[in-house]
């Protein structure tokens, strides 16, 4: 088992209300590992692309046998 600190951005779909935001974030984070501690650390609007981006800082638990993690995802 490893702990890994990552930073990532997610698009916040305009139709997704705040009441569904936590589940959306958790489902995205689980693609990389088991979320242990996370927070939204900024929300930025890109008017030219008409999107909002959520920046997250996260510590994930990575089970080595499952081979997840942001590094393995990128490599």
């Amino acid at each position, binding site marked *: 088992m490893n*702990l*890994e600190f990552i*930073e990532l951005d997610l698009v916040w779909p305009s139709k997704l209300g*705040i009441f569904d935001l*936590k589940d959306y974030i958790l489902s995205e984070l689980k693609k990389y590992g088991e979320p242990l*501690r996370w927070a*939204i650390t900024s929300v930025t609007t890109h008017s030219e692309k008409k999107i909002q981006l959520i920046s997250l800082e996260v*510590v994930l638990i990575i089970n080595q046998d499952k081979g997840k993690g942001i590094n393995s995802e990128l490599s």
Partner: protein
Amino acid sequence: MTITDPLPTLLIIPTGIGCSLGGYAGDAIPAARLLASASECLITHPNVMNGGSLYWPETCIQYVEGYSLNLFAAGEVFLKPVRQQKVGLLLDAGLESDLKKRHLQVADGCVASLGLNIGPVITTERAIQINLKKGLSGSSWGNIEEPDILLRAAEKLKKAGATAIAVVTRFPDDSDGLETKLYRQGNGVDAIAGVEAVISHFLVKHLLIPCAHAPGLAPLPIDYDLDPRTSGEEIGYTFLQSVLVGLSRAPDLICKSAMQTKEHALLSNTDLGAVVVPQGALGGEAVLSCIERYIPLIVVSNQGVLNVSSTKMRLDCLSGDTNNNILYAENYLEAAGLITALRHGINIKSLRRPIDCLKELNDE
């Protein structure tokens, strides 16, 4: 329920984001005491209550670590107030013998002078090794190199009868660093707080008992420009005493899935009457859970490094009853007033000016 019953209130001041109140050494304790007095039942976390050598035990404050706080806010865990926990002490093998002895003496002192129930004590098989990190936002974070070693020691403590765990790990010294200097002078983020939260989150996730962390650090040289908010960390050899006091009465964590029916004495998220959070720190897991459940949100001006505000989180766009659940306070004095009003059923609108006339319902 009567109108004078307590109004269980959740106070969150996230760890490692440099809040001007609560970003230092237990400097949110006065605010917590005030809100506890207004609500008569305050649920808050170690970052609020741990002041290094300083602490304030209060029977109507429930000391709940951040991971369990998230579970509580989501309705996955109930809180069961206790008279006393048996606090196991987990020491990192990376602590030098003198530093380890200092911590053991603090634990002895807490038994002898405060009447706490502490033990057993265990030292990890090898050093767990802390890595400090800082996010792009300026928040402090980090991870540990040997989580399995940490967990193994904690499991042994639980098996040996500990009902809560205080962890002391050796942190890298940074007495000459700019971060430490700025923090001590009241202008920086606590560089070690983020990873402390990671350690306690990790243990609570696996053991589901109250856990909290104290960093093992060499004493710092005197700083003549010390900010009073950091003084609680300068008047002793360890930060363990506040952790032991907090854990000694931390509520038991009762998993929802293990319950048949809700016992009367348990606190659940449905009991919450308000959640108090700094403006700018609205992107945490517990806050989002509370918003989902329409728990009144009191947003307090309390500057930190984050700007995840009510506007950025689209809270200002909400309308109707939901928006009535979002209240704003300039400081914690005002937040205490709002809690008092909520608790006693006083319409907040009647306390503000101008005040609008009532509007008749339109059939259309």
